[in-house]
């Protein structure tokens, strides 16, 4: 599957909300989309293109904005596919993928607690790796490595 094939399938469904498909090493391509199109894109990718396995969901902090990316695998085409969308840093929301791929559940919890991406309509957006009530987003670039004592005071209530 080539980027052009992907565009051919996805463009009619998403229209202008599809920002482009670019080549990405080791994968069928990288689909960049507007976050409003998330659910439509997920369904199209799973049902029309056959990417039925979600390997990973992650977030990247680019300081002025954040990026959410999804890595998918197709057992038919034996290929990976990357979906990626930009969200503003002051409103990092995107629709959850867990209604389309249930395995997104824990990945999104992790992206939420470490990078601060908020997944709308997530069934169970709780802390996964850090304790409940932990108020830091440690993989953001603005997070400073704390002196242990300072962190201890803030994490004491766990």
């Amino acid at each position, binding site marked *: 599957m080539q980027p052009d094939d992907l565009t051919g399938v996805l463009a009619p469904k998403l229209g202008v909300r599809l920002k482009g498909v670019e080549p990405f090493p080791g994968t069928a391509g990288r689909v960049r989309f507007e976050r409003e199109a998330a659910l439509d894109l997920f369904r199209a990718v799973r049902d029309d293109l056959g990417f039925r396995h979600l390997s990973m969901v992650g977030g990247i902090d680019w300081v002025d904005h954040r990026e959410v990316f999804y890595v998918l695998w197709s057992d038919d085409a034996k290929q990976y596919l990357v979906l990626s969308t930009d969200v503003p840093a002051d409103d990092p929301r995107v629709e959850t993928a867990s209604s389309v791929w249930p395995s997104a559940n824990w990945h999104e919890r992790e992206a939420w607690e470490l990078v601060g991406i908020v997944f709308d309509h997530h069934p169970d957006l709780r802390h996964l*790796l*850090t*304790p409940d009530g*932990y108020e*830091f987003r*440690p993989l953001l670039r603005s*997070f400073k*490595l*704390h*002196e*242990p*004592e300072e*962190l*201890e005071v803030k*994490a004491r209530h*766990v």
Partner: protein
Amino acid sequence: MTAPTAQLARPKESAPPSGSLELGTELPMVGEAAVPFLEIETLRAKEFIPAAKEALGSLIAEQGHAKVIRPVFNWAGRNSLFPLHWGLACCAIEFAAAFGARWDAERFGVVPRSSPRQCDVMIVNGTVTWKVAHKLITLYEQMPEPKWVIAMGNCATGGGPFRTAYSVVPGVDKLVPVDVYIAGCPPRPEAMLDGILELEKLIRERKE
């Protein structure tokens, strides 16, 4: 130094059997808590039990409870230290190796138990994160008194290489009282056994 067990078990061959018990030489003990021990002849149970009761009673009356019973408890306790069988991070590999054939920690009476209710000592063998902190405290509180904690490795001692990380408790002594610290990343099994022997010294000197 001869171990107290060996002294207690050695029968006195020269003296003729008699129905009486006498106070003999003192057990070698570290610290001032020396216990006089009983030279026990071969007796039938129905003679031995009342005689032993009487001898023990008079010994306690003479020496005081703390001086007679406490060393026995300490002796029993320090020779049957049961650590909690759990592993937090890479140090747990060395912890496990210490119970293998090569180092054989069981020769010191150290047998890992899977339930905190059966444990005397919690060996914190790895990186403690804030996520696991309250579980660690729960396990500690489930252990019956008297109980001890050994911080094994740099992580449990002070956070180790992850001291400034966002998720790591900088030293398990922030959560529970620690008796013995073992340095190393990871400490070798010999170091862990050395830490256990240090703890045995602490227990030997326990007063109450």
